[in-house]
């Protein structure tokens, strides 16, 4: 069973956290921090499995993770899951995100937390693998999008009338950019 799915960036900022077993809010944060500590100190070419941190159940659990550019995708699983199977599942998840967001980047995860959750819900349910076939997953998401669009007409009309847009360009300037050349070096695949 998958106990938790965590996504955080190279600095440990959480971008997605989904727990399939109840932990209170404080514990969830601690688990994210602990997992980041464990995973981030590892070199990129070591193996993708390690024993879970003490907070999430210690050596009875494994952390299976992949590192993509700026993001770590970590699945915490018990011994009933196949390590390589989960590794592939992470890949399916990321590829699906990539298809849904057209070239996914960290910003997509930040600005569309809800969407990311919906996509994950099509892959994993109650800690078990629900669907692994990407075209099936994509078609389900497409169905949802259609429903959404059919409702959207009214809403976008409303949006046009929204007053007082904040001063956007000024804020954009401040968005932090990662140091490109250095980060490129970290690319995997």
């Amino acid at each position, binding site marked *: 069973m998958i106990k938790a799915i965590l996504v955080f960036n190279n600095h440990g900022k*959480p971008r997605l956290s989904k727990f399939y077993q109840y932990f209170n809010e404080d514990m969830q944060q601690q688990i994210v921090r602990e997992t980041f500590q464990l995973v981030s100190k590892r070199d990129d070419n070591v193996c993708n499995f390690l024993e879970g941190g003490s907070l999430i159940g210690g*050596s009875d659990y494994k952390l299976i993770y992949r590192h993509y550019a700026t993001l770590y995708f970590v699945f915490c699983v018990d011994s009933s899951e196949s390590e*390589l199977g989960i590794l*592939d599942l992470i890949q399916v998840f990321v590829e699906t995100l990539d298809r849904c967001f057209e070239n996914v*980047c960290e910003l997509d995860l930040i600005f569309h*937390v809800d969407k990311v959750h*919906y996509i994950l819900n099509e892959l994993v349910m109650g800690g078990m693998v629900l669907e692994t076939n990407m075209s099936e997953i994509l078609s389900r998401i497409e169905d949802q999008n259609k429903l959404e669009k059919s409702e*959207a007409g009214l809403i976008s009309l409303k949006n046009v009338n929204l007053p007082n847009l904040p001063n956007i360009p000024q804020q954009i300037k401040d968005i932090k950019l990662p140091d490109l050349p250095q980060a490129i070096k970290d690319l995997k695949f």
Partner: protein
Amino acid sequence: MLATYLYCTLSFINTSDLCAVDKKKRMPAVRGDGMRGLAVFISDIRNCKSKEAEIKRINKELANIRSKFKGDKTLDGYQKKKYVCKLLFIFLLGHDIDFGHMEAVNLLSSNKYTEKQIGYLFISVLVNTNSDLIRLIIQSIKNDLASRNPIHVNLALQCIANIGSKEMAETFGTEIPKLLVSGDTMDVVKQSAALCLLRLLRTCPEVIPSGEWTSRIIHLLNDQHLGVVTAAASLIEALVKRNTDEYKGCVSLAVSRLSRIVTASYTDLQDYTYYFVPAPWLSVKLLRLLQNYPPPEDAGVRGRLTECLETILNKAQEPPKSKKVQHSNAKNAVLFEAISLIIHADSDATLLVRGCNQLGQFLSHRETNLRYLALESLCLLATSEFSHESVKKHQETVINALKTERDVSVRQRAVDLLYAMCDKSNAEEIVQEMLNYLETADYSIREEMVLKVAILAEKYATDYTWYVDVILNLIRIAGDYVSDEVWFRVIQIVINRDDVQGYAAKTVFEALQAPACHENMVKVGSYVLGEFGNLIAGDQRSSPAVQFQLLHSKYHLCSANTRALLLTTYVKFVNLFPEIKHLIQDVFKADNNLRSADAELQQRASEYLQLSIVASTDVLATVLEEMPPFPERESSILAILKKKKPGRVAEPGTAGNDAATPKERKSPALNSVGNHSTHNTSNQSTDLLGLTSPSATSASQNPAPLVDMLADVFSSASPPSVNNGFGSSFQPIDNLKKFACKNNGVLFENDLLQIGVKSEFRQNLGRIALYFGNKTSFSLQGFSSSVGTPGDLTTKLILQVKPVDVNVDAGAQIQQLVNVECVDEFLEYPTLTILFLYNGVQQRLSLKLPLTINKFFEPTEMNSEAFFTRWKNLSGSNQEAQKIFQATQPIDASHIRTKLIGTGMKLLDGIDPNPENYVSAGIIHTRTQQIGCLLRLEPNRQAQMYRLTIRSSKDSVAKLICDLLCDQF
């Protein structure tokens, strides 16, 4: 490739504004209209320069949302959705969200899909099983489950699977199985229903469908849709684990499904083929499922399964169809699972050996992941007698992995495997390699390695001089990681085997020559020389005086515990080597011993000194006689390792060669020696060194009064941390005071014992249950707990105390009941005295029974008028007691209310004209009389002070209550 995309998009932002990004990102799949307020808020947060600024911005937003939710009744669905989404984002950043739940629940019943969806998302992230909202949520789920739109049904199922509360299990436990097997249900819904049911099973095993459901559920394995089969396989495995027999029909279905997948070409399964591997996840699930059963009895099914496994092994040898890592991952995921099944069945020698060879290939694969998994699977294989020998072929490679792997996780698996593959034939080599590695091993795995080396050395020792060498090497290399149990064990073995005693004495003597040796070495050395120093004393180089000087040269560098041990060794020398008695007496007499600040050292020095002066040679020889052999027992080290790694640690080498001589190897060290007849260990079998009882029993044959004292002294040589009940690691907790305002809780706790209390009172009678929990891993002997009523308490309280068991097993809890009757009002607490033996050492706890006069309060309801009339009536000088005191914690209304209710009086609302003040009323019942009491508590928030006034109908009781309650707030 993906990663490059990540960067393309990131760099794009550089030259554009957010709108442009949004526009760029507006592709079919993503909500293009977005929620602009949300995007702006997120950008704001990201622009915050400091944590403080971020928190400030978040608090501003939270306040904004809160006021919107509170004030604006006209919020439309879109706005609610936007705010709920913001709350989710804030939650992800690590801030508690304590509102918005109701709005989210409202969204569930929205007729707009997107609003419903976000409502469900919020709930699955932020609502836990015991929320008050569960009922409302369940109602919405019911409606959506009945929807004709599968997307809505799935939202509802996801929500159930996320929360999975007991109420949900009860409400939907019968509904979901129907959904699962009904012919009308769409595949998407079936899939979700299977996993949803699985989730409910975990919460509430009673929802297991049985009878006719069983076969219908099993037959889902034949479903057309592979997604449904995958989900069903997970469900069925969980059901099988609970009721293996009822579901055994799934075996043949699983085998034929597997067979169809394995023999399929990768084009057959179309979308379920993942990088040229047909349905890898499903194959893994099916192979796991089959591991719950023995090999199929039906020859046909068994044959087909063997075929499948062979095919999978064959495919591993074929050239890869793709260079992508995904292809090899998927293929190998199936392969590893197949090998697991082969190991599990443990019946087909050919397959086992093939599996082993395959894993051997992976050991030198360039993918670290595969090397890791191969080591892990080989560990399992090593326990099978068919393959134990084949696994041993890879010994070189594994040792090499230990030396060269860059990843500590992999090295750890290599250690595990070496431990598992060790047997008599290779023990010396493996132990040596592990010792070599230990010198540079990662700190994180040293302790475990030390335990493993110690176990292997003991188990496979044919020559005990080797064993002694190994353990001394362990101490030399990794002394800090050698726990007490390890060095206790070497001493047990040396004492029990006379063929190794001389060698041990010689070796420790040599080891102690090192200018810097670990304190654990000093401990072993001093113990061994104290017992067997005479065996090497003939040699001038290790004459008694030299031995003594050598040990004593370490004395000043050691901790008090070790010094205590050394003093005992010295007094043993007095007996062994009378010629150096004067040297030893000088040491005992030295100021830093005889007047040591450490009470234990001081006592030993003075008592040993007296012993050496007073006692005759005969007495000395009896008191300080050689230790009797220890009784045979399982290695305590193995127990520790099992505790550290539950389920992971088999006894090493339980297969193969080893199986031939299993009896002989169980604690071989101890077999040859008979139990000492006077050795009373039956009640101490867990005490590692067993130091206490032998000396005590051998001493008790001697009538000299000195002996009692000595027994006591000797006992302190047992594990240091338990010398007294108040070990250093744990500050004892004494909660006596808190019980003035509560009846249940933990009264006392230290390293060894936890005492809980539950009590109830009616009128002048009461019943107190004491719960004694043994926190140690040893049983507590001679346990007694008695309650006393000092002084005139005897006349005021009648106590009836039930006896308790004299033994409290490790980790167990026992209960003691105390019945109480209050005859007259009383001031003191009854005493509670607990006595027991821990590790042979008498422990005594002197506590108080949490029984105070206010326990006999009957709460009294009265109105304002009655209260003030009585208040005025009780105006005699002794009838009122008043105290003004500093608050010990922040003044908080709910805290005060809890405490006041806890006093046993009735907390009366709306009586005091000042709403900040509290008044209570109650009647104390004793056998002889009833005493009315009124209370008024006035908090002063500015000064953080309270004024407490008590008036009572009986003189002196007011003061009693006032004193009791004044330090509660």
